[in-house]
């Protein structure tokens, strides 16, 4: 009973709140980092150096008026943010945060589940996030939202492919779909050194999956005035926003797990700490990319995927296979 119900529930609650907290503070981090990169301070007012800003934003969103446009398909309009946040949160279930720890004489694994198909689980459910975007954009009955939804879903479907192919090469050298096995396999050398090409492909297509700046097709403020969530307000908007940042954190964890050796690190710090250090490093990288690159034109985005990333990922698989066959 304890083994199968209480501990998982506790783990669920802990991990869920930790990641929600991290996601909330990622918004703060983004604003701060961007601000400093652009020679300004970012939020400063609420709390020390604006530390309470995310909480203030949350409260503000909660109390805003909830608008539903007349033209909207109401059911879908309400459903879309829910889908989005669910698809994001569900991914947390399989991410291993650290090596097993012992509390009160019990060995506790620092993950909710370790299915044999872990990475497929992530690939499968991360795509579902696109439903939120596309349905939200379509259901609001607004042409910008509609355009954003279409563009976003097309891009996500496309980049999903090269992302999966980059993962395939990792699966090949690991010989398992389980994320825990993947971390274990990197005890000696991190995958980023074994599979640099796959890492780059994964990073680029991952940023695209997140709809982040060089690839922020569905939102594209200057073109589509915020795209799919143009009609959303208050908590629904907050859910979209949160989902996006949870996605980003999960993506950072995934990069850490797949390429940076998960919780592995010098012994002077516990594994969980190493894991989060790496996660924040990757998040920082994402923010840095956002601050650096301009948005690509839509057709160039597609061209980059189909004519560059996909062939490169395929060739990488081929090369991996050949090297494995030789060794």
């Amino acid at each position, binding site marked *: 009973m304890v083994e199968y119900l209480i501990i998982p529930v506790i783990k669920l609650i802990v991990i869920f709140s930790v990641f929600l907290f991290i996601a909330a503070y990622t918004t703060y981090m983004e604003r701060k980092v961007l601000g400093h990169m652009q020679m300004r301070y970012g939020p400063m007012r609420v709390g020390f150096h604006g530390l309470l800003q995310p909480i203030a934003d949350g409260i503000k969103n909660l109390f805003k008026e909830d608008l539903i446009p007349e033209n909207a*398909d109401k*059911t*879908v309009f309400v*459903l879309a943010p829910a889908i989005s946040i669910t698809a994001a949160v569900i991914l947390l279930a399989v991410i291993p945060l650290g090596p097993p720890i012992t509390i009160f004489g019990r060995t506790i694994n620092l993950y909710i589940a370790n*299915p*044999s*198909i872990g990475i*497929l*689980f992530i*690939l*499968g*459910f991360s*795509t*579902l996030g*696109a*439903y939120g975007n*596309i*349905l939200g954009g*379509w*259901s609001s009955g607004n042409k910008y939202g*509609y355009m954003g*939804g*279409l563009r976003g*879903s*097309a891009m996500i*479907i496309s980049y*999903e492919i090269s992302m999966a192919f980059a993962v395939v090469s990792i699966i090949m050298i690991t010989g398992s*779909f389980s994320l825990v096995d993947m971390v274990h396999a990197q005890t000696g050398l991190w995958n980023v050194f074994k599979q640099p090409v796959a890492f780059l492909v994964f990073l680029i297509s991952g940023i695209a999956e997140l709809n982040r700046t060089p690839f922020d097709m569905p939102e594209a403020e200057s073109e589509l005035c915020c795209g799919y969530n143009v009609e959303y307000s208050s908590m629904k908007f907050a859910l979209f926003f949160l989902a996006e940042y949870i996605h980003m954190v999960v993506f950072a964890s995934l990069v850490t797990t797949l390429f940076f050796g998960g919780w592995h690190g010098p012994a002077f710090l516990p594994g969980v700490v190493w894991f989060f250090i790496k996660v924040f490093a990757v998040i920082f990288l994402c923010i840095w990319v956002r601050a650096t690159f301009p948005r690509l034109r839509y057709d160039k985005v597609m061209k980059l995927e189909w004519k560059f990333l996909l062939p490169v990922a395929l060739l990488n698989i081929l090369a991996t296979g050949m090297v494995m066959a030789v060794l």
Partner: protein
Amino acid sequence: MEQALILICGIIAIATAIMVILSRNTVHSAMWMVGNCFIIAVLFLLLRFQFIAILQIIVYAGAIMMFIIYAIMMLNLRLSDDSADIVKNLLNGRYLLLALLFIGIVILGVGFGPMALKGTMTDQAMIKFGEVELLANYIFSEGLLPFELVSVLLTAAIVGAIYLAKKN
């Protein structure tokens, strides 16, 4: 416990399936269909086939249904042409008769028919099969030829789809 789960899932599956064909709005149909796919995946999980379950989600929910919704949106379809008389059509006598016949036959055949084939594998092995390694071994040894043929089929489908969708 398990039986109850199966029954609940089954009822949900049937309900979502019926909603697919009853919805007047095409997008709603597609969304019910996504739900149906999920429930089928859950049923696969209950049958201890993790791999097939996640495949069901990736392929159906992730790819096919995404395509379909995408297509619906591109064509900007909302209400179906026949939205007025869906129920009338469904309750048409001959269709109902056919459907009842069908269910009856399958229940007759399935419920009391003997299970003639018996595989050579044990239950444990089959559980393993639900994971990945044994299935991979099977695909790349005995099932290699059909597997490759399927890949050819997919390639052909992609080429065909691109050709069809291309504007001249």
